[in-house]
């Protein structure tokens, strides 16, 4: 190693050590939002408050919760910023959030019937989001698939193999979509719809972004996505379209101050910034395309921009976040056991039923009805799903070995039952006359 190089390296190391010493206010933000959004906010915020430094920590919602929970008091991140309101419920019931009081008075208290801010003051709505369908216009044309309007359309045979959805355990926004369908259609009908949709799906993607990405590049025809994924893709010039179905809910994406962080003052400053006129305007950027909570911003939006305060989105479902939070882990686990991890079998069963329908040409068949029932009935019925014992078991502390064992046993029962049901359905459908 020559001396010049060695000196350069030593200098480089020394300069890099500077951040270790720590600046006055470093605001660490745990978020599931994409890089365009975080970069835009980082630039704007640091330009406005040159003394502060914004640190972005990108994690999906579930991993973000786990991360905040595992940090010791005093060195937690300042901000948690994500789409799923139930994530905030989980954090606030674990006493991990700090009260931040009322925000910008120009922001309305409610959108539809849903409160924009947490009634208890632990988190605030920062943007609004609806859930809907995004499709690749070229793909649909090439495959002769009609454009969908409602969730219910997606269970039709014509969509077999053309859809994509993410798994709610990996994506907070997908969990909201799933809950919206369950609350909008009811437990039993909702699951039947979900199983029908996923049976028609080509993939259950690992990341929520896998869906809009796959639709944009034409791997999938139609995806179930949060609105800004669809709108941002469309505004970036991709050949895609996006609609809100009528069974949708408009729910705020929230921002919260984590309790036990290093610089809560800096954290509050950032929250105020995101809710200011300036911070809200950033949401309209082409590659971000989110819905502001500050109604006056919509005057600056381009023509055709959806406005939840102006009635351009019909949201039939009044999202009940308490209900959603109470059964959060049960829904995640059911979806994974019956759909994510058994997707191959589910698709095979769906295919067998479709083939049988074609073969029978509309004739009634008890075997086929039975097969349909086996595939579309949720493994846990509505009554069981509301059982406080089951709900408590799934919420239990991970360190509690007994509870984890009991939970693993129940999950295994579901898995076995589901697998047997799908296999039986294939058998019945192929034998249906």
């Amino acid at each position, binding site marked *: 190693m020559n001396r010049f190089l060695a000196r350069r390296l030593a200098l480089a190391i020394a300069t890099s050590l500077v951040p270790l010493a720590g600046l006055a206010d470093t605001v660490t933000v745990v978020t599931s939002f994409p890089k365009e959004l975080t970069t835009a906010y980082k630039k704007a915020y640091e330009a406005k408050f040159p003394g502060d430094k914004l640190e972005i920590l990108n994690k999906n919602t*579930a991993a973000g919760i786990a991360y905040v929970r595992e940090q010791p008091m005093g060195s937690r991140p300042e901000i948690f910023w994500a789409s799923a309101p139930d994530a905030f419920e989980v954090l606030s019931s674990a006493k991990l959030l700090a009260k931040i009081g009322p925000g910008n008075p120009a922001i309305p208290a409610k959108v539809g019937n849903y409160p924009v801010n947490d009634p208890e003051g632990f988190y605030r709505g920062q943007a609004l989001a609806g859930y809907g369908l995004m499709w690749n216009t070229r793909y649909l044309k090439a495959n002769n698939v009609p454009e969908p309007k409602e969730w219910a359309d997606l269970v039709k045979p014509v969509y077999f193999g053309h859809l994509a959805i993410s798994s709610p355990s990996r994506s907070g926004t997908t969990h909201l979509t799933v809950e919206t369908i369950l609350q909008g259609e009811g437990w039993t009908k909702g699951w039947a719809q979900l199983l029908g949709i996923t049976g028609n799906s080509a993939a259950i993607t*690992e990341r929520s972004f896998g869906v809009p990405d796959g639709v944009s590049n034409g791997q999938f025809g139609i995806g179930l996505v949060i609105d800004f994924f669809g709108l941002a893709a469309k505004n970036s*010039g*991709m050949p*895609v379209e996006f609609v809100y179905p009528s069974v949708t809910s408009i729910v705020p994406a929230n921002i919260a101050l984590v309790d036990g962080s290093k610089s809560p003052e800096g954290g509050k400053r950032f929250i105020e910034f995101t809710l200011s006129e300036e911070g809200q305007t950033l949401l309209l950027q082409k590659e971000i395309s989110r819905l502001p909570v500050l109604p006056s911003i919509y005057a600056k939006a381009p023509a055709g921009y959806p406005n939840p305060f102006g009635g351009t989105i019909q949201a039939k479902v009044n999202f009940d976040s308490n209900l959603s939070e109470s059964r959060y882990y049960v829904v995640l686990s059911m979806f994974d056991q019956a759909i994510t991890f058994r997707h191959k079998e589910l698709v095979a069963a769906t295919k067998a039923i479709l083939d049988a329908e074609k073969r029978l040409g509309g004739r009634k068949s008890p075997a086929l009805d039975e097969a349909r029932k086996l595939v579309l009935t949720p493994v846990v019925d509505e009554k069981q799903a509301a059982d406080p014992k089951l709900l408590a078991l799934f919420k239990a502390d991970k*360190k509690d070995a007994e509870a984890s064992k009991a939970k693993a046993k129940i999950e295994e029962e579901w898995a076995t039952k589901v697998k047997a049901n799908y296999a039986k359905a294939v058998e019945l459908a192929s034998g249906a006359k």
Partner: protein
Amino acid sequence: MNRTSPAVVAVALAIAAFLVAFLVIPVATVVYTAFSDGQGGFTLAHFSAFAGISLMRESFANSLYVAGMTVAFSTLIAVPLAYLTVRFQFRGAILIQTLGVLPLVMPAFVGASAMQLLFGRSGSVNLILKDAFGISLPLMEGLNGVIFVETLHYFPFILLNLSAALANIDSSMEESAQNLGSSGWRLFSRIVFPLALPGYVAGASLVFIKVFDDLGTPLVLNVTNMLAPQAFLRVTSIGIEDPIGYVICVILVVFSIAAMAGSWWFVKRRDYAVVSRGGAMAPRRRLTPWQTVLAYGWITLVLLLVLSPHLGILLLSFSKVWSFTVLPEQFTIAHYATVFEDSTRMIWNTFLYCGLAALFDVIIGTAIAYIVLRTALPGRHLLDHLVTVALAMPGVVLGIGYLRTFRGIELPFGGGALTASWLIFVLAYTVRRLPFALRSCMAALQQVHPSLEEAAENLGASRWRTIKRVVVPLMAGGILAGFVTSFITAAVEISETILLTSRESLAPMSYGIYLYMQSIAGRGPGAALGVIAVVLVAVGTYLSHRFVAANTPQNPTGGKP
């Protein structure tokens, strides 16, 4: 020459302490957690819980299947190519050598996203096939995709090891066989391949381990029912306390070590030594016209496949809109502008972490090589073995081990938690890339004849002076090659990186690529960053080959360690 001085002992102990702290303890913590019942007792309950979950059994089977199939397909690609280069008069040899390096310069997970666009459901190839024949090939669906991507990425391990082994076979064996009337397939399958078996097994076991442990590729391809992704998912979404994650880690470790130990055992079991070596290489035979056509056809096909991820990522980095078309429609250089505007920090971080890690690697590597080859220190081989174990240690396991072991450890001078600082990357990369540097340093020192050192010492030079003025300068080529190999392999590391990244400002490029790839508008910049990484690695690989070639002019293969 075999003397032991206190200084040597001190250095050996320091290295041992470093390896214990940053390799043995983290891995031991993971193993301990998997067997611990939480109160300090021993339990197998977590393992029976693991075995009771059908998803885990399936993931286990899938990981084995994918690793096995990847070895099988890699063999199909690599064996003919290796045989061609070493045994035939053939102008395409340089092409094949290029083939051996090209895939390694592209991190598998970067290649995966590009290959989705080329071979996926509506990728270029399937669009063309659908148009022409109305069919589409499920090349990228589920486990197929993982096998496809990993095969193209890892077959060079077999190619390089096998070529080196073939080149070392005593030609008299082959000549005897030919004189006795053997030729063609029989000559290859009965004489040549068995003699080259150690090289093949070494390559194949490496491929198996790499694929079995890989996290980035399955994640990018949305395949979660494999062991490494399950470990990652359990630990990130359920939490660092989840015992199943540790059970998976133990299984990954056991299989990796077993594959490695198995390959050693296999090679040691029989005597593969040939009487004379390195003397006359077997005369290269001529190809018949038909064989030439076949050979070039095969090479062209493999070359096209191998180049496809590079081509894909390059196209993606310049494309504005690429959707449901064979090629992108509009081109732009805006993505590179975005990267240089927003992510120079990540590029700099990569240089800092990997540069430091590679520097530590060659320092430790040179020291270990010297201790092992030039001293009689008792237990000196233990250092060598420990480092080699690091080669079999999956990134996921080490990452989880670091998070768990060093949790709550604060750096001095208010530096914050160790696991939240950039030092953790340097440590992790240093440990995992040490085997590469050590191999280069060992090889370099083996080529320095001890008589040179004796001469220096006879002339009155102290040992330290001899090392500084004679040994290290003579090893320089090998050390540089080791530095570059450590650097470039660390630069594209993703398994540990995903786990250890606690803040975006600390993230190296590999994480940046992964992060960018998570949004529509980010795909272009992600690809641009990927191209930069590929160029960086390609230049590094080229330089390391130059160093090796300059140092050992007689080495015909110039392979990687």
